[in-house]
């Protein structure tokens, strides 16, 4: 019996060695939880790492249920990046414990936390994890990834910081574009109404008044009075559009549109925004830049601003 066990152990070790060898062409494997972080790691690590994201398109990371494949991915990873601030729920705790076992694990937004007052919080020190909504915030996240990869692989540190700087330059352009198109919206219409509170960073960075219909928790529900107040607010300010999110059910937003119609104010659904997850991998919206480009372009066009239909780089696909 013992011998049999031993054989199984040896066999599985040999197999995992084989699997590792298959990945040997790239020198190590980096894993990120959400696509937005995987995108940074891909840009910074370049040819040196094989990068894999765990949580796919259109999935709410708060509610993500890991599968066996994810565990295989995580246990084979050489370095792990995750968002933190409870975005990944209990998976975050597990990753912290993985990090204590000599595996480099970085909570990207929690590293930014030390940089004095950037991360948003309510009075009770509960942090808002949706940092990527502000491009400046994500520029800081690039620094965290560059530092993490350089600590893990000091040999290529110069390469990583060069890649990081190049990517940050692209992000600066994106940031400038976002500032410009949001500023083109008439001032009293700079109001963003969505299903849940994922856009606070975007609001702060680009001067939008953000109103979520339901709170941060997916368990809490919108009260009738909240919807009433919001409808009055919409018709007072003559807001032309509200928005749905790809990873959150749009029931509440549709209720809002119906409610406004009953009051004689026409609000249309301005489009789908990417909040907690990016678009289909392989498309422009499946990258971080494409995601933000899509969001700000959609918002600006629906609220009466001017923005090119194709977005910053004329790559947006506005078929829908």
């Amino acid at each position, binding site marked *: 019996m*013992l011998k049999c066990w*031993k054989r199984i152990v040896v066999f*599985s070790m040999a197999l995992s060695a084989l699997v590792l060898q298959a990945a040997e062409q790239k020198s190590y494997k980096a894993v990120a939880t959400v696509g937005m972080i995987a995108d940074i790691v891909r840009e910074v690590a370049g040819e040196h790492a094989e990068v894999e994201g765990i949580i796919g398109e259109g999935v709410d990371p708060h509610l993500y249920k890991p599968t066996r494949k994810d565990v295989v991915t995580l246990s084979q990873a050489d370095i792990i990046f995750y968002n933190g601030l409870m975005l990944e729920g209990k998976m975050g705790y597990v990753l912290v414990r993985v990090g204590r076992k000599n595996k480099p694990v970085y909570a990207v937004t929690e590293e930014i936390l030390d940089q004095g007052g950037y991360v948003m919080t309510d009075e009770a020190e509960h942090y808002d994890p949706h940092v990527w909504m502000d491009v400046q915030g994500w520029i800081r996240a690039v620094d965290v990834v560059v530092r993490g990869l350089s600590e893990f692989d000091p040999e290529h540190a110069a390469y990583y910081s060069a890649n990081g700087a190049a990517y940050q330059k692209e992000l600066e352009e994106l940031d400038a574009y976002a500032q410009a198109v949001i500023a083109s919206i008439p001032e009293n219409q700079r109001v963003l109404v969505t299903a849940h509170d994922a856009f606070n960073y975007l609001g702060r960075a680009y001067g939008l008044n953000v109103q979520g219909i339901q709170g941060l928790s997916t368990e809490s529900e919108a009260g009738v009075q909240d919807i009433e107040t919001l409808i009055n607010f919409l018709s007072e300010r003559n807001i032309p559009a509200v928005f749905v999110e790809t990873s959150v059910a749009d029931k509440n937003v549709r209720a809002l549109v119906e409610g406004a119609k009953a009051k004689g104010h026409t609000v249309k659904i301005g489009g789908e925004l990417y909040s907690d997850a990016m678009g289909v991998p392989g498309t422009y919206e499946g990258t971080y830049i494409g995601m933000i480009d899509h969001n700000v372009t959609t918002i600006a066009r629906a609220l009466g601003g001017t923005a090119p239909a194709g977005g910053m780089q004329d790559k947006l696909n506005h078929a829908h």
Partner: protein
Amino acid sequence: MIWLPFDTWIVIIGALCAVACALPGCFLVLRKMSMMGDAISHAVLPGLAIGFLLTGSRSSLPMFIGAAVVGVLTAIFTQWISRFGRVDRGAAMGIVFTSLFALGLLLIVQASDQVDLDPGCVLYGAVELTPLDVIHTFHFVGSEIEVPRAAVSLGVVVLLNSLLILLLFKEFNLSSFDPSLATTVGINATVMHYLLMAMVAITTVASFEAVGSIIVIAMLVVPASAAYLLTDRLSVMLGLSAVIGILSAGLGHLGAITVPLWFGFESTTTSGMMACAAGFLFALIWVFSPRYGLLARKFRRKGKVENE
């Protein structure tokens, strides 16, 4: 498909959870309170909210304590209402858990709407991730073995539940089937009931924390019901339910990593598949059980008619 060491751990942890839940589950099924696990899974919400309001943090311990306290309260309130309110236990459970869940929603909306406090985020674990959360490492015949935290915590629950049932077997047995007889021979059936409910509540919350909700709810009901179709003896039923639970855990994980491949998908969630496997085993037993199975009953009736 490659079977890795942590697959073994996932099955072991699933099996431990199944046994921990199946043992008290037998008594729940006998007392017609099978949905207690489901009730507790909803009722924990105010516990989480109060734990959060008192400590101001979403770390595991206050969440766990809050949930465990409310779990026990659910059981107690259910008993009160069914005894003094003259409604059956199913209805009493329904009243208690919906009220508690609603209270939890009110607390969250009033006090902490800016914080993500749903059980899926702060309380429920995932059986797939448990092998990564290692508490102890030791060496055994030349290979390193990493023991996950969940295996230890669920192991303790299994041990406590079996000890309690072994020590108080006669009392539990009698008070489950005939509370008035139990009282006449000097067993306090009410105390036994509260003891059992406390056991269910703590088992449920500990298992939620380790492996998530669906597998726990399933394992409280399904293995015990399946075992109930196979035997009339409580001791045999307890043993069989544990075996069925272990089988569902093994089959479930195997299913989770092989079945989706046949249809060209990647592996699916293990806890869902374990619950499905339990349902599948129940269906088999329901049809083929030698005494109470569908076929057996059909043939017996036929035999009877022919004899007449």
